[in-house]
Structure formats: C-alpha cells, structure tokens
C-alpha cells in the first residue's frame, strides 16, 4: 500500500479511484471504444437507409451521384487521410515526450480538419446554386440516367439521395467540428506541457475519435460520389 500511495502522490494526473496509471488509461480506452461502438450504430442506421433506397432507386441515384464533384470529394478524402497521419504522429510524439512535435502535429491536424470543412462548404454552396438542396426549390429535371440515354431520372428519387447526402455528410461534418474542438483543447493542454510519456491518454483518445471520423468518410466517399461513374 505505501508504494501505491507514493505513486499517487507523485503523479498528479492519476485520479484517486484508480490503482495505477495503466488501469486509468485502460479504463479511458475501453470507454472510448464503447462510445465509438455507439457511433457505429448511430451512423449504421443511416447506412442502412442508404442501402434500402440505393437498391430501389439505383438509376436515379446514379444520376444524382454523378452531379457531385469527384475531384473535391477525393481531395477531401486525401486531406482526412493526411490528418489521420498527423494525429498518429501527435500520439507518437506525446508518448515519446516530444512536445514541439506534438504541438506541431496537433496544429497541422487542425489546419487539415478546417480545410476539409472549407472544401465541404464549397460543395454545399454549389448544391444551393444548382437547386440540389431538398425542399421547395429542389430541381432535378431532364437529367439522364447513366447508361439509359432515353430515360430521365425521377426528381423525387434524386431528392432522397440529396437528403441522405446532406444528412450523412452534415452529421460527419458535425463530428469534424467536435473533433476540431477537442484538438484545440489538446493543443492548449500540450502547450501548457500537461502531456508526458507517462500521461498522454487525452491525446490518444482524441486520436481514436479522429480516426473513427476518418473511417466514416472513407465509406461515405465511394458510397455517395462513386455510385455509377463509368462512361
């Protein structure tokens, strides 16, 4: 007992209800993974809706998907992958006690995350201009179904595609905004020198969340942008 009390006294980051730092870290990790499990089910409902309507309205959805900008979508995928690299480098820097590298990578992650949202904003603006936002002013007339030059896409079926496009990418963007908030907090804490090789759990857990949001986008990109692209 005296030993563990000594450790507790010397490690201000160790909360009193944990026996040792490793136990505290494992508890945080398990909690984060359970949270990510609920997130899988949260997005899972939307992916299920997507599957049902894509099966039913494949041609109309292919036409709607073709109006999205693949270059912007692929660029955003690359931006998020780069941000995942800076996150994993930040975790590595925290665990090996490299404070400047940690702060640099956290800032790079913030820049990349903001760039992602900026590109998303450009895409959203284009949707408003083309009247592709579901609602009273939605227009999707005289758009051919890919592979069927004699057939026009049904506007109300395409509207369901754009509704799901906005809900799924919007929910994803909301997660990005939350992630940016978390990473601003991590940057401030890193600046104050709170993270050491012994205590860096917040960086690691923030990283898990960021990677999860990246994985969601890895699925959203082909599902929304690449339904029926070939000429």
């Amino acid at each position, binding site marked *: 007992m005296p030993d563990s009390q000594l450790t507790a006294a010397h490690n201000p980051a160790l909360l009193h209800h944990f026996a040792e730092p490793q136990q505290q870290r494992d508890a945080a990790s398990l909690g984060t993974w359970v949270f990510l499990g609920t997130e899988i089910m949260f997005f899972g409902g939307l992916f299920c809706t997507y*599957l049902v309507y894509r*099966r039913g309205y494949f041609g109309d959805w292919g036409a709607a998907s073709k109006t999205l900008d693949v270059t912007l979508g692929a660029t955003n995928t690359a931006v998020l992958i780069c941000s995942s*690299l800076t996150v994993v*480098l930040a975790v590595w820097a925290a665990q090996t006690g490299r404070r400047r590298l940690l702060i640099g990578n956290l800032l790079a992650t913030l820049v990349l995350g903001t760039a992602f949202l900026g590109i998303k904003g450009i895409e959203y603006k284009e949707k408003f201009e083309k009247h592709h936002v579901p609602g009273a002013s939605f227009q999707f007339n005289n758009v051919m179904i890919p592979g069927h030059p004699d057939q026009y896409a049904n506007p109300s079926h395409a509207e369901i595609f754009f509704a799901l496009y906005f809900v799924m990418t919007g929910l994803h963007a909301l997660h990005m905004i939350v992630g940016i908030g978390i990473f601003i907090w991590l940057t401030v804490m890193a600046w104050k020198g709170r993270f050491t090789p012994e205590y860096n759990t917040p960086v690691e857990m923030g990283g898990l969340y960021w990677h999860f949001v*990246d994985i969601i986008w*890895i699925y959203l*990109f082909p599902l929304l942008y690449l339904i029926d692209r070939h*000429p």
Partner: protein
Amino acid sequence: MSAHPSSSLKLYFGIWITLLACTGLTVWAASLDLGRFNAAVALTIATFKAILVALFFMHLKGASEKLSKLVVVASLFFLLILLALSMSDYATRTWT
C-alpha cells in the same frame, strides 16, 4: 508503444501512402464498367482502408486489452444484424 520508435514512424508513413494510393485506386476503379461489381470493388477498397486505419493508426493491432477488441467485434456484429436483417426483408419484397 513500440520499442523501436523509428520503425513505428516508418510504419505510419507506409500506411499513409497505402491509404492515399487506395483512394486513387477507388476513383480509377469507378471509371471502369464492371457491371454489378463496381459497388463490390469500391466497398472492398473502403473496408481495406478502414482496417488499415483501425489496426495501425488506432493501434488495435498489438493492443493489450482484449476488452477493446471485444467491443469492436461486438459493434460490427450488431451493425451486421442491422444491415443483414433489414436487407433480407427489403430484398424479398416487391419494391413499389
């Protein structure tokens, strides 16, 4: 963490390059006419990328805690139940 810091850095950069290459691959594959297999190819590449991120960036590979892995497997299992049972219903009805 790994005992060899430089080797884990090499791994991270290798995964990063692979993920970028897979993004290019999936865009290119979408431009080919593979019939019904376009969706399968796109989803296979996406799943490969997701597995790389989960195993190496989220450190699931080499994680000491079995509980975290159990949570991941359980989550995916429930997602599978959601998708498989819903689709087995919709796929056996006439779409109206």
